[in-house]
């Protein structure tokens, strides 16, 4: 039986984008004949000659080039080799791509793919989750797909959007997550999904943390707790309506993110719920994020640095007791 990994879904989405839209091209280090550091563009340079190009190690110029191409109406996909290196192109992303439409009225339809998140031993510069930093800038769409189906449909969506999209794909999920087949339908852009309906508490999560939350919910179900899990899918725009509806059902909120707590996605979700859904809360809203240090290298340290099913379960138990 054929199964599709998260990474293969990315590759297939890019293949389809190249096939269906002549405006699409892919630019990044090692994406050409080598097929990409993670093989996300395997064979695509051969299938679409001249449209999948190796770039020099120049993240600033890679994004600048994509912006110029987007001004002229193309739809570039820039692959950053690791999310952590996107900071070398930070200026072009947040000061140029994000502001272009607002300042000039000309849209900037580019996609920047960020292989994000930690794997054992990847260390401080190959593990970061940068969605909150980019989401802070108005003008950038930030996507954080958690499933094989979503990473496929949302990458296609990202290419079709007229806004610059920061596409945070999770490295750990690349080969660990598989699906039977690709979907033909998807949730509307910007909508969150109820991954697991529940009654006693809501866990809002995104990307790899959705799976930790689901595992924690499963564990708590043995003790009679029914936990609802909301998968944000996109961080910006943020689907406040679905989140509020969930908290209305359960009255208790835990937000989980792999990134650091300060000014993060969890903080944004909780602020909105506190401001717009104060009367729904039966207990103070809680968040669970990575420890406040750079991501450690050794797997023993890394194992407890970011939230896991176990730590999510502990936080939930505390929340349920309040």
């Amino acid at each position, binding site marked *: 039986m054929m199964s599709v990994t998260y990474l293969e879904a990315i590759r297939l989405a890019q293949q389809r984008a190249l096939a269906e839209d002549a405006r699409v091209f892919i630019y990044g280090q090692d994406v050409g004949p080598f097929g990409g550091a993670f093989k996300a563009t395997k064979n695509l340079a051969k299938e679409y000659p001249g449209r999948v190009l190796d770039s*020099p190690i120049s993240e*600033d110029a890679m994004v600048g*080039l994509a912006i*110029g191409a987007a*001004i002229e109406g193309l739809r570039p996909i820039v692959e950053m080799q690791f999310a952590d290196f996107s900071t070398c192109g930070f200026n072009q992303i947040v000061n140029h791509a994000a*502001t*272009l439409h607002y300042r000039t009225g000309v849209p900037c339809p580019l996609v920047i793919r960020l292989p994000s998140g930690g794997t054992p031993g990847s260390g401080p510069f190959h593990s970061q989750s940068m969605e909150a930093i980019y989401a802070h800038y108005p003008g950038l769409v930030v996507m954080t797909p958690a499933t094989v189906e979503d990473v496929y449909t949302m990458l296609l969506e990202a290419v079709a959007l007229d806004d610059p999209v920061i596409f945070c794909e999770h490295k750990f999920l690349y080969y660990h997550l598989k699906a039977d087949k690709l979907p033909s339908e998807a949730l509307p852009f910007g909508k969150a999904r109820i991954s697991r309906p529940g009654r006693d508490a809501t866990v809002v999560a995104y990307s790899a943390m959705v799976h930790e939350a689901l595992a924690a919910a499963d564990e708590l179900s043995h003790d009679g707790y029914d936990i609802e899990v909301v998968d944000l899918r996109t961080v910006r725009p943020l689907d406040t309506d679905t989140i509020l509806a969930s908290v209305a059902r359960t009255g208790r909120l835990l937000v989980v993110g792999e990134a650091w707590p300060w000014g993060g996605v969890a903080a944004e979700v909780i602020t909105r719920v506190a401001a717009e859904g104060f009367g729904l809360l039966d207990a103070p809203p809680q968040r669970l994020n990575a420890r406040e240090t750079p991501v450690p290298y050794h797997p023993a340290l890394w194992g407890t640095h970011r939230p896991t099913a176990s730590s999510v379960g502990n936080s939930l138990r505390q929340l349920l007791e309040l």
Partner: protein
Amino acid sequence: MTKESVSVPKSAGKLVAVDGTSREIARRAYRIMIEARLLEEKLAVLYRSGKIVGGVFLGRGQEALSVALGVHLRRGDIYAPLIRDQAGRLAFGDTILDTLRTYLGSSLGSMRGRDGNIHRGRPSEGYHAMISHLGAMVSTVCGALMAKRFRGEAGVVGATCIGEGGTSTGSFHEGMNMAAVEKLPIVVVVANNQYAYSTPNSRQFACVDLLVRAEAYGVTGHRAGGNDLMDCLKVMGEAVAAARAGKGPQLVVADILRLVGHGEHDDASYITQELKSSLLGRDCLELARTALLEKGWITEEEVFEWRLNVEKEVEETVSRVMREPVPDPAEEDWNAFASVGRNSSGEVE
């Protein structure tokens, strides 16, 4: 976006590729230099009388270099001017009206109040709107040229200008390197005006001559006499022609002196008297006038009339623009996205 189109003079389409020094081009270039100079003098006055919001950065002394690039560009080319390129902008099709609208904050300007002064542009017409971070525009022009190449548009040129200070940035380096790797038809003009704000060249770079970098990047280098209009026209003509002919990136380095403060808030007292009274310090407008008069390509009467007309046009445009509405925060939709609307709470998501 206003409905006004960039008016690229008809003569631009008829330019002969190789010889950049024809009488027609020189006359056009010189007239535009006058426009740029008089317009900027007016901007300085408006600034000092508190009519302009934000900073004002003028290109006095650099008009010849800037216009020489602009007159060799045509519709379909990409142009990303920087701070001291009022003359080049006018040559490429920017107008006195839109310039004043942007500086005086009229809501009818191309940037609609959302960005100002030298950040103006019309990207969909190939006229890029710079961001403040120096060096960033090089790769943007490259990207636009890549797109045209994908589309099979031949004979297109991209151009951008920068000061010697801007060449110290990482983004300049990345952009030049990428242009060379991709063999793009870009002309990069470095106006080495000896000072980046107050920083002299001795604190900016250590190589003897910036032109050496052309070889280091693997591109063709050209040297232009920055305040000599005829030399600039010749060199730019060659550089643009070479790019158009597929010879890859062209780096033009010109020595020049800024005849004005870094911004109108600055008095340039750090520029040495020695430089100011050297050959480098001579005013390109004066030099061009002398040169063209000698060649018999212009007459004193014409020049006088041109100046009068430009002054009149500038005055009238100022009055017109001062009566135009300023941006109204209540009318703005305050949304930075093209595809994202507002959620049920009314916030942009």
